[in-house]
């Protein structure tokens, strides 16, 4: 049994400690907004927050999470009450297939948390870890900027 704090709820999961957090979320807890794309830290589809920092859930063993708070896309916001980053994503209609977008949004939200007014270079550096096969990058970039503006009350 491993104890995890996911989106504000403490959960007991009956899995081995070495299971990647990605699969504990998806298969053991049924929290599937976090996606599997590569399993080797190349695509970013599995990005979640650990105590607010973006990590690749395919690279973190559940046994190493400890008491850190896990936030997934479901914990960031909801369809009724989206996080400002999600609201920007909706407003600019970023998603095509959408499969990468949970990870893109989690990366963007963590970036804006620490760097409320990121430069183009900072956006490039952080979001380049997230692959989008559909090529939604131009709108991702615009949406990060829109969200930054909104978060700063603009």
């Amino acid at each position: 049994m491993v104890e995890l704090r996911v989106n504000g709820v403490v959960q007991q999961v009956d899995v081995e400690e070495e299971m990647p957090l990605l699969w504990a979320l998806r298969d053991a807890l049924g929290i599937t907004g976090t996606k599997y794309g590569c399993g080797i830290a190349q695509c970013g589809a599995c990005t979640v927050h650990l105590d607010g920092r973006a990590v690749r859930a395919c690279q973190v063993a559940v046994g190493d999470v400890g008491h850190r708070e896990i936030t997934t896309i479901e914990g960031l916001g909801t369809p009724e009450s989206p996080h400002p980053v999600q609201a920007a994503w909706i407003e600019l209609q970023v998603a095509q297939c959408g499969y990468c977008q949970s990870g893109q949004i989690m990366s963007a939200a963590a970036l804006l948390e620490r760097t409320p007014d990121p430069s183009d270079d900072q956006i490039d550096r952080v979001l380049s870890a997230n692959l989008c096969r559909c090529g939604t990058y131009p709108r991702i970039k615009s949406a990060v900027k829109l969200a930054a503006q909104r978060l700063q009350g603009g």
Partner: protein
Amino acid sequence: MGRLGTVTRRTFLIGSAAVAGGVAFGTYMVKRPLPNPLLDDLAEGEAAITPYVKIDADGVTLITPRADKGQGAYSIQAHLIAEELDVDPHSVRLTPGLPGPAYYNANVLKEGSPFPQYDESWMAQRVRGLMELPAKLMGMQMTGGSTTTPEAYEKLRMAGAVARETLKEAAARQTGVARSMLSTEDGHVVTPSGDRLAYADLASLAADIRPVTNVELRPPEDWTRLGRSVERVDIVAKSTGTLDYGIDLDFDDMLHASVRTNPGMGGALVSFDASAAESMRGVSQVVEITNGVGVVADNTWRAFQVVNAIEIEWADGPYPSSQGEIWDELARAHDGEPDSRNRDDGDVEAMFSDSAATVLEAEYRVPFLAHAPLEPMNAIVKASDDRLEIWTGTQIPGFIKTHAAELSGVAPENIFVYVQPMGGSFGRRLEDTYVLQAIEMALAEKGRPVKMTWTREEDMTHDYPRPAQLARMRGAVKNGEVQAYDFANSSSSVMNSWFGRLMGPLPGPDATIVSGAWDQPLGIPNYRVTGYRAPEMVPTSSWRSVGNSGVGFQHAGFLDELFVAAGVDPMDELIRLCTHDLSRQVLEELKSLSGWTGPSLGEDRARGVAFAMSFGVPMAEVVEVTSTPRGIRIDKVYAVCEVGRVLDPVNIEAQITGGVIWGLGHAMNCELTYENFAPKQTNYHNFEGMRLYQTPEIVAKALENGDEVNGIGEPSVPPAGPALANAIFAVSGQRIRELPLNKHVRFV
């Protein structure tokens, strides 16, 4: 050219059928003695309806049969119906439906609806048109070849209009008010006195009425949804992690599985040792499947670990083992008999022996490319002795049903395919091996749903890629003009490989080996295009823009060499050579939009241009680059095309820019190279495509000068790579004749 036009102009019939508790509206087809796998379940003369609108006591359901791989198909289909039906697509149910019309057969027959005419020439034309991809895709409930919009454009609006008028007729009978006095609004029929009758309450009455089919479609100036920026129906779910893709579905008691099959695709399994694997925690069983081994376990991670722990001996793959041997085969094919010569204007040979002409020769190569959509292939199957249920993202639900029946012995009418939203496809899901593998494992675990997920490594190495191709060309310039272009490409046949797996091998030449060359509207006086068919090697399939993806680079790349040799401006020469008004307008618009005055943009900066017409859409792109000390930077791209009518401006921009990024990213750094029968590339670390930091500003423009409505999922791909290569030449003098370009230059 204009192949899609012949389809959009054909006739079709909208009718209705009673269904449980209500009524469905859709198109009719009748079984005739012509092959159409869709109608296999029907007796001759029987009718089937493909429903688009269903209304019952629970409300309105729009059935959007074209799969959504991310290109916005659900949304555009829903908006087409809603424009005529007067419902809000965000507040009705949407479903991709079940494959095949047979699902609704019984009801159609019970009602015995009349279907006065059947346009036989239409079906015959489809069969004759088998050589052409779009025609072939059309008949078979597939999504591909940029066909969704042109096909849906009239059909779905007509279905919405027939449904609306029939509901009004039902309301007229119920209220005694003449139909012409009634109007419709947001899912209701409204009487002159303001009474509102919900569609749901009229459904059963409407089922008993002959559908009102003499309806006029609303003219574009009256549209309230189409042509405007509308919110995609799935955009909130996709931005909040709440959309379930196939890979996300969960059922009680579900098992998880993964497979490894011969990396030499089609090669056999010789032996395997699963003794260690079988005793690992959480393993249900190890199953031998076609050409490989599968593991069924308690979670996906376990299935991955265990399947990778099995010792397996593979037979050789059924094709040359190395990339070098594959190139040799492609080169040899040029010495054989032509597969096609669809263009032979003037006399190229005479021009090559003209002593006043400058003659150029070149060889261009394009590599195998994986589709690699971000959601790896997966399927959930629940099997019992006489029933199969399948949940998966696919473009070919009808074929899955046929193949599943052959594999399992279950009767087709007891096989149900539930099409799921897809995390990308790009042509990948026109294949169904992964589904058949899931069926094999579910048959070993009857009664429990089995979710089979591929590792990314299995996915990348079993992709059915775009084929490698080798083109040889000669050209002649004289008096500052391109006088001759002799283009010859060799390739294995995608159509034969892919169709062989779907239905059996395809006779006749494969036009896709040269599509993007023979069919271009360029008036070069001596112009010859020849296709050479190399033997089947690695199994291949359609990859976003199909033949045009590789041929586009080869054809436009060498054309640029001819322009340079002739000493002409490439943009002006394309315009001068262009024989098609709509295409010329595209080029002229691109010239003015990009402020084109020539390839040079000053020190260390330059641009290239390329044109390609594919799927009925003329598309031209300018790529601007800077040569920096660390490598080439792509600064800006202009993309202009002709689509007839823009139905969804937000989505069309997304599709054009997405295609440009797809085209550029793969041209920059992607290839599959074979060694020991398998690709060396196994995951995104060595098959990367474009990333955000490399993404240029992209200006996209869609013109509406023509009268055909065309889809835009693919046409922006072909010109992107050659426009970039031509820009690199303009900035550096380096002519690159093979992809990926990063074999020769660095990108920053």
